[in-house]
């Protein structure tokens, strides 16, 4: 189970569905159940949609994660899009450049246990999220 990483190209809106279905499947294999599966799928959906909306093309990578005895799922969204000029602003609830409700990034952060964002203008954005089994 340790090496089963899943990668999904994100180029169009139907890839968002593919990514969240794959995320739910992997999370279930890792041992997540019930509302955690929905929460993980929803966070994946938000991040994958951000790629489609702002970067057009990118990738979601999903993998089991293990850290100091804890097991969970690692979700990475990568793109080589325009990047986020002001991350603090993008992480504020309700902030949007007009294509969304402005809940995608802060919402995904609330859904997951760990959330990191690295972005460089003109180079792209990488979002790394983890959820741990309770």
């Amino acid at each position, binding site marked *: 189970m340790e090496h089963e990483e899943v990668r999904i190209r994100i180029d169009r*809106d139907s890839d*968002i*569905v593919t990514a969240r279905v794959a995320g739910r499947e992997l999370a279930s294999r890792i041992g997540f159940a019930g*509302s955690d599966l929905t929460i993980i799928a929803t966070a994946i*959906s938000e991040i994958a949609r951000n790629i489609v909306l702002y970067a057009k093309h990118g990738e979601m990578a999903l993998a089991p994660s293990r850290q100091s005895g804890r097991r969970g799922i690692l979700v990475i969204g990568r793109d080589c899009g325009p990047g986020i000029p002001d991350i603090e602003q993008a992480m504020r*609830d309700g902030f949007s450049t007009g294509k*969304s*409700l402005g809940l995608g990034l802060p*919402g995904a952060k609330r*859904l997951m246990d760990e959330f990191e964002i690295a972005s460089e203008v003109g180079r792209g954005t990488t979002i790394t999220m983890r959820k741990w089994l309770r």
Partner: protein
Amino acid sequence: MPVPILKQGGVLIVSVQAALTDNDLVALRDDLAEKVGRFRSHGVVIDVSALDVMDSFATRTLRGIAETTALRGAKTVVVGIQPDVAFSMTLLGLTLDGVATALDLDEGMDLLAAPIRRRGDDGA
């Protein structure tokens, strides 16, 4: 994949499937706005019980559907939001403000039947 719209009396019934894409949702909104006029419907029930995810886009589009159909004279009821989905929408900070909701299709039909008896031509 277009979402089928069924007509029952003065109500349009929509059952969305799990693999609903953003474009499907937007097409559904346009389709409903047109059919509400064509069938002179006073209500729309959208059954989302098959949906395992309601993210910010789906929520925004459902709100848009409700607002669009309201402007066309029909009330929209969203039914069948699953418990896990409701929980994760709450965490996300998503609300369906201004959109009627009901537990299931039957409750949704009741909600639409109760107060509205206008357009007296539907014989109900």
